[in-house]
């Protein structure tokens, strides 16, 4: 039984469909990421779960309870806004205590609770600071603390690290992951940064143009994208046009043009691909190897990246160079090998 379920949820603004019949199921305690380019509808979906937008159709349930008719203040969710939305007229303590007013705690209990939360996000002793006296990273922690102190069933994070510089972002990624394990709350994070989604989340949903393309673990998304858009969005990928010649129970025989005829494991083809179908073969740059024999090409450009180097190799009869990531240094004419176990077949 899923903890958060989104069923056939749609939303249009002025005739423009932003979220298109989306289904989603998230388990309790999961760290889930919605990944997609800006404008793909991920933030709108998040805002519908928080209650700031009303779905045009479909149902949102949290822990079995229907959410559609509830205003934001009655939902068991809390949100970390992209710009943090720290109340500028209140200090850090009062920002964090803001959502506890209704609980009518005795003053001492309130103080204990807020102080404990300040410690959790490592802001001890900063309770009397005003928002304009905080750094970007500190404001992000205040926003987290303010949401978590209410003990939500589901924490929603809208591009929470987007406003931070690269180094701080990397440090906060580690902290955010640790914090989620510590508090055990279900996290739903929205981001356009694939690295962030892959490093933080247990599972990732890739969204494009209002639809969810694939939901999988980061490892699986990387190794087994189910379509060209996902493959291209996550990491770098080489694509080759190909035609399926024959299928049997374990293998697929594929005519891949410049790569020749290849036999790959049947499991490497996306489900539903049939014999005779035109497909795309995809392979990651680190899986293409330099070899003594194979597909002939010439190195057009090379970038030294320390442990590995990144090359662009041009092939005869192919406009687009092949990206190759290799630990060995090369130059000039080369031969490339494309190990069949690393080639995956996607619908063209």
């Amino acid at each position, binding site marked *: 039984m899923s903890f958060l379920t989104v069923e056939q949820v749609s939303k249009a603004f002025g005739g423009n469909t932003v979220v298109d019949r989306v289904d989603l199921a998230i388990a309790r305690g999961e760290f889930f990421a919605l990944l997609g380019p800006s404008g793909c509808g991920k933030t709108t979906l998040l805002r519908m779960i*928080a*209650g*700031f937008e009303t779905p045009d159709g479909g149902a949102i349930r949290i822990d079995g309870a229907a959410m559609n008719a509830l*205003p*934001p*203040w009655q939902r068991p*969710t*809390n*949100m970390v*806004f*992209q*710009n943090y*939305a*720290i*109340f*500028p*007229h209140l200090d850090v303590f009062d920002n964090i205590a*803001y*959502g506890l*007013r*209704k609980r009518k705690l005795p003053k001492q209990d309130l103080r204990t609770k807020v102080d404990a939360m300040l410690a959790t996000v490592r802001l001890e002793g900063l309770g009397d600071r*005003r*928002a*304009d006296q905080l750094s970007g990273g500190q404001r992000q922690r205040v926003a987290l603390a*303010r*949401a978590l102190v*209410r003990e939500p069933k589901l924490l929603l994070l809208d591009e929470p690290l987007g406003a931070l510089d690269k180094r701080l972002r990397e440090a906060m990624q580690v902290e955010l992951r640790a914090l989620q394990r510590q508090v055990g709350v279900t996290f739903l994070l929205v981001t356009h940064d694939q690295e962030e989604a892959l490093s933080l989340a247990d599972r990732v949903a890739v969204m494009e143009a209002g639809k969810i393309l694939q939901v999988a673990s980061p490892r699986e998304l990387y190794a087994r994208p189910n379509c060209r858009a996902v493959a291209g969005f996550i990491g770098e990928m080489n694509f080759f046009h190909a035609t399926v010649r024959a299928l049997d129970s374990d293998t697929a025989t594929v005519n891949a043009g410049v790569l020749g005829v290849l036999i790959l494991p049947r499991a490497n083809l996306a489900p539903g691909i049939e014999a005779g179908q035109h497909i795309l073969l995809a392979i990651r740059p680190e899986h293409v190897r330099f070899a003594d024999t194979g597909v002939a090409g010439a190195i057009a450009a090379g970038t030294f990246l320390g442990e590995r180097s990144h090359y662009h190799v041009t092939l005869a009869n192919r406009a687009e160079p092949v990206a190759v990531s290799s630990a060995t240094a090369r130059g000039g004419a080369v031969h490339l090998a494309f190990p069949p176990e690393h080639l995956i077949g996607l619908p063209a």
Partner: protein
Amino acid sequence: MKKNPALLVYAFAYLAFLYVPVLFLPLFSFNDSRFISFPLTGFTTRWYRDLAADGAMLHALGNSLKAGAATALLSTLLGLLAAKAVTRYRLKATGAALGFISLPLFIPDIVLGISLLLLLGAVGLPQSLQAVVLGHLLVCVPFALTVLVARFEGFDRNLEEASADLGETGWMTFWRVTFPLVLPGICASLLLTFITSFDEFLVAYFLSGTEATLPVYIWGQLRFPERMPMVLALGALILAASVALVILAEVLRNRGMKRTRVGA
């Protein structure tokens, strides 16, 4: 950057043109002569003592303060509601509504005054201080709205959403977030509309009837030269109070700016 002496002279001449006439008020209000002319003849506080003893003048002052306070409160309240509506909800007729509310700014006061007088006559209401307040509302609501819309637009909408997300209803969000953040705008609007009502003459002239406001009363006194120094004394006092109010308003505005910059 090279300094242009001509510009400097111009700037000083302009400032002198603005403020020297105003400074004549306090100057002559302490002059021991009925006639407003140089040379000065001596220092006296007589005109201020006469002023304190002039019941009719004080009554007019009281009327102006009452009308000003009522106008300020009502127009700021109306402006607050309208500003919240046009900045927070996607309304179809926002542009038209703003235009119609602001229209009285572009109608000459004399037209407003006469037409309101006709209206009073048509519905059988007497000229009164209440009528003055209604007339001043027409003039002041656009000012209040302009000040408050700027204030509402200056702060982040996410703050109100964050409050709702943290468990507060619309009403409590207004009190705990919106109101404190627009408070400097509310103060500025109160001051601006009070001052506008306080020195408005034309509409008050047509609508006040027997309850003259201060500008209307002073205008009536101009026929009596011997009362002029007293009017000057009153003018000097009003000037002092206005300067104090403007400084207060600026201080409030600056404090407000500092606060809201944070939310962005």
